[in-house]
């Protein structure tokens, strides 16, 4: 009995001591943070010593472990007899951004959850980094779920430390990466705040930091720009482009199709659980172009060969071609008529327009 009591006392003593120490440390760092904020507007340089300016915080994927980062073939999933995902196949290559676009409720989130092995597909096969997802592979994947979530009662830096540890990034490395990323999203002054004290948008940024903190090779973003202001949207886009330039594979899901056009290399368009369109962005746009050109010039002839209609948009006019004449033919005709052409542009549809067209045709 005496030994047990002795051991017990020791355990309790250690616990109490640790508690006091953590509290003390937090108080001190909070006070330090305030002092820095008051005396100098910019944080001291030592805080980002490890990642010198210009050097990327993300390691380059030099030798891809597999041909594709993601291979999904004929994946289906039903909930209560309703097909949510129906025979969807796609791949994601290294250094590539795949845009998964479609309206709300199309099955994007379910597809991503199946990629993450959070939901099992009813049929079909998913290979991540060349093989079916195993627990230890999760360390190389970053996932920003649509349902954002952080512990509300603990501080930003404690949250980051815990979630990084779960991805096997610990100790000094975790702290340094967290600080560097927080600095880049301008959240460093808030690191000792509890998450519940932050605004919604700030929480979003923290969540984004969590997703890329462990330098994943495959990153899956589900609606990353939802509820973000234009400045932070741009900030995140820069991050995504930087990740791509480091050879990472990226899946970007969104219902705001126009917002991601500039980011995506390839597009998987989903509607009602089915893949309605899948391919390179440029190729898709070429395939679905309206067969019209935008012309801005000093005068426009009444009729032109190969042009079946015209629609004025104010300063410029949209000319609809008959399908046999190419834009080049029209331009040649205009120049032959000595028209001063200020702008001549082959109209490419936005992803939104492509989507509407595909749905209408389907």
């Amino acid at each position, binding site marked *: *009995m005496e030994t*047990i*009591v002795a051991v*017990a*006392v020791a*355990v*309790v003593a250690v*616990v109490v001591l*640790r*508690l006091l120490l*953590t509290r003390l440390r937090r108080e001190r760092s909070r006070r330090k943070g305030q002092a820095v904020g008051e005396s100098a507007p910019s944080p001291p340089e030592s805080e980002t010593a490890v990642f010198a300016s210009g050097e990327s915080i993300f390691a380059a994927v030099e030798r891809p472990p597999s041909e594709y980062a993601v291979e999904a073939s004929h994946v289906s999933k039903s909930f209560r007899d309703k097909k949510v995902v129906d025979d969807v196949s796609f791949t994601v290559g290294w250094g590539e951004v795949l845009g998964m676009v479609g309206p709300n409720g199309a099955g994007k989130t379910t597809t991503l*959850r199946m990629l*993450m092995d*959070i*939901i*099992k597909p009813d049929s079909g096969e998913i290979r991540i980094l060349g093989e079916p997802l195993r*627990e230890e592979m*999760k*360390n190389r*994947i970053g*996932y920003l*779920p649509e*349902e*954002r*979530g*952080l*512990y*509300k*009662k*603990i501080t930003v830096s404690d949250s980051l430390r*815990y*979630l990084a*540890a*779960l*991805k*096997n990034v*610990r100790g000094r490395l975790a702290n340094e990466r967290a600080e560097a990323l927080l600095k880049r999203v301008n959240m460093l002054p808030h690191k000792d705040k509890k998450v519940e004290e932050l605004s919604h948008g700030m929480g979003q940024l923290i*969540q984004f930091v*969590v997703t890329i903190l462990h330098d994943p090779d495959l990153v899956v973003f589900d609606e990353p720009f939802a509820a973000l202001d234009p400045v932070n949207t741009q900030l995140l886009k820069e991050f995504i482009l930087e990740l791509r330039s480091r050879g990472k594979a990226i899946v970007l899901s969104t219902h705001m199709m126009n917002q991601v056009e500039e980011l995506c290399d390839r597009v998987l368009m989903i509607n009602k659980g089915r893949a309605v369109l899948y391919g390179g962005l440029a190729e898709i746009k070429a395939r679905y172009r309206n067969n019209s050109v935008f012309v801005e010039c000093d005068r426009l002839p009444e009729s032109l060969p190969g042009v079946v209609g015209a629609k004025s948009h104010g300063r410029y006019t949209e000319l609809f071609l008959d399908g046999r004449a190419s834009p080049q033919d029209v331009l040649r005709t205009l120049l032959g008529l000595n028209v001063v052409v200020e702008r001549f542009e082959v109209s490419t549809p936005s992803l939104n327009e492509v989507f509407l067209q595909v749905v209408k045709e389907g």
Partner: protein
Amino acid sequence: MHKTLIVLRHEFWLAVRNRSFIILTLALPLLAFLGFGIYEGVQHWSHPAAPQEVQIGYVDQTGMFDEYTAQTGVTFVLYGTEEQAKDALLAKTIEDYLVIPSDYVTTGLITRYTLSRDVEFPAVTAGAVKDFLLSNLLAGQVSPQVLERAETPMLPVSVRLDKAGEIAPQQDIASSYFVPIIFGMLFIFSIFFSSGFLFQSVTEEKENRVMEVLLSSVSSTQLLVGKVLGLGAAGLVQIVVWLITVKVFVAVASGSIPLLGAISIPASLLGWCIVYFILGYLLFAALYAGVGSIGATAREGQGWSTIFALPAVAPLYFSYFLVTNPESALARGLTFFPLTAPVTAMVRLSIHAMSAWEIALSLAILAASVALTMWVSAKAFRVFSLMYGKRPAVREVLRYIRES
């Protein structure tokens, strides 16, 4: 470090830093010592330091009582008449006076006159009066030894034999019976309280939507096991604080509460109690985590925790039956049924009523149930942690768990 350990550490520190946890942990020791303080105060106040020697007057109309006037704590003073005795009483030179009538030997009647409100003799005085009367009645008629036996006829010593007629290894059941009661109470306390924490932790993660982030890093089993063990460790810290309280309390209070001093806790019993405690805790924790993840809110959770705690508490209600009929079918059944096993086994072990095979079998069943419950709960955790808002029907629960 294994991811389960990371979850464990996180949950542990989260729990012990929780304000309500700290308050709860310190409340019991504070209450215990506060209670003891009040008890002491009341004792002191209601029995003001009584004068060591009490003077009691008596008027003897039989002429038989003139010796042995000095008894422990009481001196008897003879008065010639009742008037004299009454004057002495009113002058407060004596506490009370007794009148022994001339027909005392046939009737046994003695009248006590007193100023105090309680008409009954205080126990100490009554003993002294009895000894005074007895000594005088028997003086010269029997030997001093017989006189002493007449005053103290019995000094009992009990020896408990086991079924084989051998002297049983443990003689005092009452004191060792105390151990399972304490453990049983602590066990029930701790599953009640930590079930609250578990529900809170699981439902909070659901409400925070943090679950999906976690599941993209760890498996649902790692998460659940880490959670249960982490909160279990926190619960253990709490129990240890309480046990130390009990130990210190017994040491401090045994001086004034004699029963507590008699408590001795055999090490082997303590060891088994700890094993049953930990396995039992894990079983209930896994059960609660599973229920919590299926979609019960924290409030519904309290209802569930009461339902599950009933079988844990039941053996305490039956404890008298268990002690008197430790070999009965009911006692055996309760030992093997996992939800009642911990407390039942603690009670039966304390009276050495469990054979080795019974211990082995009940522990095996308990451990298997822990593993099974953990497994099912992890499944439920995985399936239902992403379902927000709606609570599934029982049939759906079963189907999803089978399918996942």
